[in-house]
């Protein structure tokens, strides 16, 4: 061991070389065990609560499982049922409507807010105020808005009446979805805007200076400078909000209790209902698997967008 080291480093004394070899070899050897020790907690958690459950979820989706009895294998019956399940289909449609509307409107509003933050150089404290709604649990958000929109005493309805407009109601089938969408956008606006703002701070100020010298208006600079340069950030945030919006649940459960009107019955709610109200864990798992595939695809796109993000503006 020491002889090979000596041969390599010709001049060094044998004692020196030996000391070095002792210092190096065991470190590599020890690193393997140290790595194992450091990894154990996270690895245990990951195997027990992520990997194994993923496998069990697929298994449940092939069974009839009511929690009380052992799961009974029924092949693809759950999926066959799902194909013909009008409620599932309508909740998926409702969810997609919600996702598309919230993402499109939310992104546009957040971009404008972020542009204001950037061009007016809003102080950190102003930006953190705009973040407040995002920090609050959705349950509280839903309750506050349910109260503001209360049919008899809601303050927002009072304001609407005061300016001669008709009031709005959670329980009006045609208004329910727009209301939920608006609340969702409201609660996420500051957060999404801050993400865009973070992207905008990467845009070199020289570009705006040059634009100003050329006499470009703020509007023009927004469309010609800001938007093109933060495109990767927009892609990332859009996918992220879409994934978040797919999982809308608390707003519906609070707004409508255990039995939402069909206009707002989202797929997440339907999974919850099947699994925990009707105790059909197998069927719930099958719907969850389909949703997981959709969300997984979106996340994969997100990761790709992230990689795209790296190449731009750097």
């Amino acid at each position, binding site marked *: 061991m020491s002889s090979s080291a000596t041969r390599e480093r010709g001049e060094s004394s044998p004692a020196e070389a030996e000391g070095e070899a002792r210092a190096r070899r065991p470190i590599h050897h020890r*690193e*393997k065990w140290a*790595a*194992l020790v*450091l990894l154990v*907690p*996270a*690895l245990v958690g*990951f195997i027990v*609560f*992520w990997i194994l459950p*993923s496998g*069990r979820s697929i298994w*449940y989706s092939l069974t009839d499982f009511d929690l009380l009895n052992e799961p009974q294998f029924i092949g693809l019956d759950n999926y066959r049922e799902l194909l013909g399940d009008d409620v599932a289909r309508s909740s998926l449609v409702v969810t997609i409507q919600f996702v598309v509307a919230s993402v499109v409107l939310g992104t546009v509003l957040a971009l404008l807010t972020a542009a*204001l933050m950037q*061009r007016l*150089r*809003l102080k*950190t*404290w102003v*930006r*953190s*105020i*705009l*973040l*407040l*709604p995002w*920090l*609050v*649990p*959705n*349950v*509280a958000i839903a*309750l506050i808005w*349910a*109260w503001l929109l209360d049919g*008899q005493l809601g*303050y927002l309805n*009072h304001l609407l009446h005061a300016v001669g407009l008709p009031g709005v109601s959670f329980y009006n089938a045609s208004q329910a979805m727009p209301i939920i969408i608006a609340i969702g956008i409201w609660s996420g*606006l500051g*957060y999404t805007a*801050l*993400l865009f703002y*973070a*992207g905008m701070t990467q845009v070199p*100020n020289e570009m705006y200076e040059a634009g100003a010298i050329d006499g470009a208006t703020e509007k023009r600079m927004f469309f010609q400078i800001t938007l093109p340069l933060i495109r990767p950030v927009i892609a*990332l945030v859009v996918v992220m909000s879409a994934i978040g919006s797919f*999982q809308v*649940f*608390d707003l519906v*459960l*609070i707004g409508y209790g255990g039995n939402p009107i069909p206009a707002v019955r989202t797929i997440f709610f339907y*999974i919850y209902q099947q699994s925990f109200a009707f105790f059909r864990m197998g069927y719930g798992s099958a719907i*969850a698997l389909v949703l*997981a595939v959709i969300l997984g695809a979106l*996340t994969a796109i997100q990761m790709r967008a*992230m990689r795209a*993000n*790296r190449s731009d503006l*750097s």
Partner: protein
Amino acid sequence: MISTPVPDLAPSKKSAPTGSPARPRRSIARGARRVTPGKAVAWTVVGLLVLVSVFPFYWMVRTAFTPAAELIGDSSRLVPSNPTWINFARVLGLTSMEESVAAGGTGATLDFLRYTANTLFYAGSIAIVQTLACAMAAYSFARLRFRGNSALFGLFLSGLLIPGIFTLLPNFALIRSLGWLNTFQGLIAPAILVSPFAIFFLRQFFLSLPKEVEEAAAIDGVGVFGRFFRMTLPMSRGPVATMMLITVVGVWKEFMWPLVAANSDGTRVLTVALQRFQAQSPNTSPDWTGLMAASTVTVIPVFILLVLLGRQLVQSLNFSGGK
């Protein structure tokens, strides 16, 4: 964004102005003092945004201080005519049942003091333990040489692709079969040890730290644990604290898991307690003053967090990208 956490934390290569180093960033605020019509409109919009963000919470607090009997009379007043603490007292479980009923409650037991403590424990324990466990794993991935390092890291990353709902049902069945429903261990178990995002985030940061110091320490005989716990971890206080902050906020908002796994008096967290309170309140005339007092109790810790750590929180979003 997630992909660029490092430049914001470590001394950034990008932030060094290469062009004209003498010019301070501020000089670019062209005509910041001049008020143009466009600027006036822009500032008005900002004012409206702030108002719209804050007013619903103001209304929540206003209602919480309104006596139930005056809810109708005060329904359009910006300040309650006879402010009272009674709604807080009854949702915190400080009044007798008769007093609660007299103040507009249903007489159902409410103990939001306890639910707050539960939530603090739930969010605090997960933030601390999860972040530490993930920092340990992240350090292994960033610094240690062992076979399968990148494959294992890839496996953890794949966890980002698994939506919560997918593991929620089997985890519920598992916790149930362990007899852990409605216990704290059942509540925290799925999240306490690992978050793929935290591992990803912290590994990125550890990779950005200079290797040389550690290598020198290794040659001086400092072991892996010494290097991690006494050198790298103290050097990473900022990002580790940021990760904890993000985790606390995330767990504070958590609803579905605690709803199905820990809906008993001893373990109920604020979000679940709020939902339950609402579900028990009569549909025809909800106990709005009580519900708003309970909502205020839920929001106050978040509000304190924002006042104390708003700056860090806002700046952390620059590189966390959320999740």
